[in-house]
């Protein structure tokens, strides 16, 4: 198999300008067939602009984008038949039911063999199939959007912020659907600002900031390469513990008023901290040692948090 044939998407020096604003800055990457590729970055980083150029919705200022070996600026009509797209903030016709909406998009693709029931089942919408779009919750709408994105049995599926604005339960329901796609071996291009979503679903993650890719690799590799430390969290600690840890040369931080978080280099450091607390006769209720996550990798690489609500927590 040639390298070209293995790649679903090939992007070379992609740039998009809006006047003085540089939305996408010299981006290059490839997406292998069958992998789940995620753009991870905060709102306004340029994720959607880049992905909409690949989806043929927008035109690039410069650079080359090839999707399934076709130039996206020249072969739109052929490309759209082979891809499925869940756009950001997906919406549909208010008074059309779930089943009718899927049937409508199936007709647009002239798919005589669309398995409408199968798609409804896949998106877990069987009991809502007669519900009109305007009556669906945010999570149900996103699941319908995913079902529609699959109506033409696409080779590449683009999901732009599929869980934004959803409550945790609805988000997990959408993740279940996405895990189903992953099992089926679909090439999935995901954009998200939820690091847990990227970590759970993606084979390859590209961290985006200010229109550029700042790091790319598997979630594990990104963490290994960019955040080689452990995070020790001590809960319900005695008030003296903060000073004890600080005296040892670490920089503890309060996550809540009596919980502290400490970055340590090695497992031995964990043991040393625990021994020092024990020797001082201080106490704590429980402890947690974990590797850093993509959120912390992102913070280290860009100096900014992925989401504003996590900014304070991560900064600590």
């Amino acid at each position, binding site marked *: 198999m040639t390298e070209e044939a293995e790649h679903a998407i090939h992007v070379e020096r992609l740039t998009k300008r*809006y006047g003085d604003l540089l939305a996408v800055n010299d981006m290059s990457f490839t997406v292998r067939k069958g992998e789940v590729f995620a753009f991870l970055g905060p709102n306004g980083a340029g994720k959607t602009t880049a992905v909409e150029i690949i989806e*043929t919705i927008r035109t690039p200022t410069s650079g080359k984008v090839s999707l399934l070996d076709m130039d996206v600026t020249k072969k739109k009509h052929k490309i*759209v038949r082979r*891809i499925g797209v869940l756009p950001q903030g*997906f*919406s549909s016709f208010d*008074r059309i039911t779930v089943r009718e909406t899927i049937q*409508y998009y199936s007709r*647009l693709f002239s798919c005589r063999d669309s398995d409408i029931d199968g798609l409804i089942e896949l998106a877990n919408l069987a009991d809502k199939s007669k519900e009109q779009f305007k009556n669906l919750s945010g999570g149900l709408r996103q699941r319908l959007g995913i079902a529609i994105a699959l109506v033409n049995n696409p080779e590449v599926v683009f999901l732009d912020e599929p869980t934004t604005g959803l409550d945790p339960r609805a988000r997990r329901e959408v993740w279940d659907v996405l895990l189903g796609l992953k099992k089926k071996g679909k090439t999935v291009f995901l954009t998200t600002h939820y690091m847990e979503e990227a970590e759970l679903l993606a084979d390859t993650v590209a961290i985006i900031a200010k229109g550029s890719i700042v790091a790319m690799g598997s979630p594990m590799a990104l963490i290994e390469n960019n955040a080689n430390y452990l995070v020790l969290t001590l809960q319900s600690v005695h008030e003296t513990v903060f000073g004890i840890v600080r005296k040892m040369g670490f920089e503890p931080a309060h996550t809540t008023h009596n919980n502290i978080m400490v970055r340590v280099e090695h497992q031995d450091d964990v043991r040393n901290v625990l021994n020092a607390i024990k020797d001082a006769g201080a106490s704590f209720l429980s402890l947690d040692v974990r590797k850093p996550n993509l959120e912390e990798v992102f913070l280290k690489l860009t100096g900014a948090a992925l989401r504003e609500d996590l900014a304070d927590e991560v900064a600590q």
Partner: protein
Amino acid sequence: MSLRVIVANLIVSIKSFYREKTAVFFTIAFPVLLILVFGTIFMNQDDVRFDFRVQDLDQTHLSAELVRTLELNEKFTITKVDPAINATQYARNNKLNLVVVIPKDFEISLIGRMTRNDLNASVTITYIYDPSSTSVSTKMQILNSVFAEMNQRMSGKPPFITPAEVSILNRNYRFIDFFVPGIIAMTVMTASLFGAVSVNAELRQKGVIRKLSTTPITHTDWILSNVLYQFLLSVLSTILILLVSYGVFNVSLQMSVWLPVFVVLDVFAFVGIGMILTRVAKEAESATAAANAIMFPMMFLSGTFFPVEMMPGFLQKFSRILPLYYVNEGLRASMIFGDNMIALRCSVIIGIFAAVVFVLGMMTTKWEEG
């Protein structure tokens, strides 16, 4: 262009339409209600009767004859007022717009004139009236003509000028006959203009158009299916308007090929304007406001509800630059007067306008983002 795609779009549009009760009301029921209301109001305008009070202060045989003569006029409904009361106060208290007062010496003066040919013998009939009333001047004008005719007969000479009426129409047409073509033109305009604005602005704002742009549906498929949908709605509402007009008011209109021609041109013209508005006004709300700003002058100044000739000169000139004027004129020329030449002239004007705005609309409506 794909017929399958156009049909799919059409099905979605029709389902969305009949599930939206407000749209059904304004597209179908509202014009029918307009026909029913205005038709009922103006149905008997030729048989309108004017009511007023008469106070006979003379209370003689000849004054009673005068009242009887007025009563015989089929335009008047007369109620007699007690001669003992103050007529002005009575009119004020009862909010009457006209009380006709026959003076006390009516019989003596009339006998003087008839028997002695005394030219100084005359009477003054007093109109006690409310000048703020809109109908009172018509009542007084009709009374004046009745009294003028009496005076002329009393002179014993035949009239020198006698008017004769010859209608240019084959039969007498009523207001409702004039009204129905205007309502058809207005209904088609409203549905097409707001349909185009709703389809293009609201769906674009919601992101539906962005999703559609990642499917095989083409820009042309989309626009054609929407025009077809607007045309079907227009045909439906036109048929309903005509059924009610014939069924309830027994209108007398000529059906010809001009009716579908003007409906099609009306659809293309206002879908085109709607598409351009959508491009100029980015938000759905501002596009709707702009559509309203276009629709209302069009509705009231292009002869939909009343003839343009009733308006001041400068407004008449203005009305002639409104596209709906030519739809109204064309439909009336064909449906009332059977005048193919005027219908042809109007269809050419509105046809050129429709072609220009529709092509401009197609060119300005873009799916791809920048």
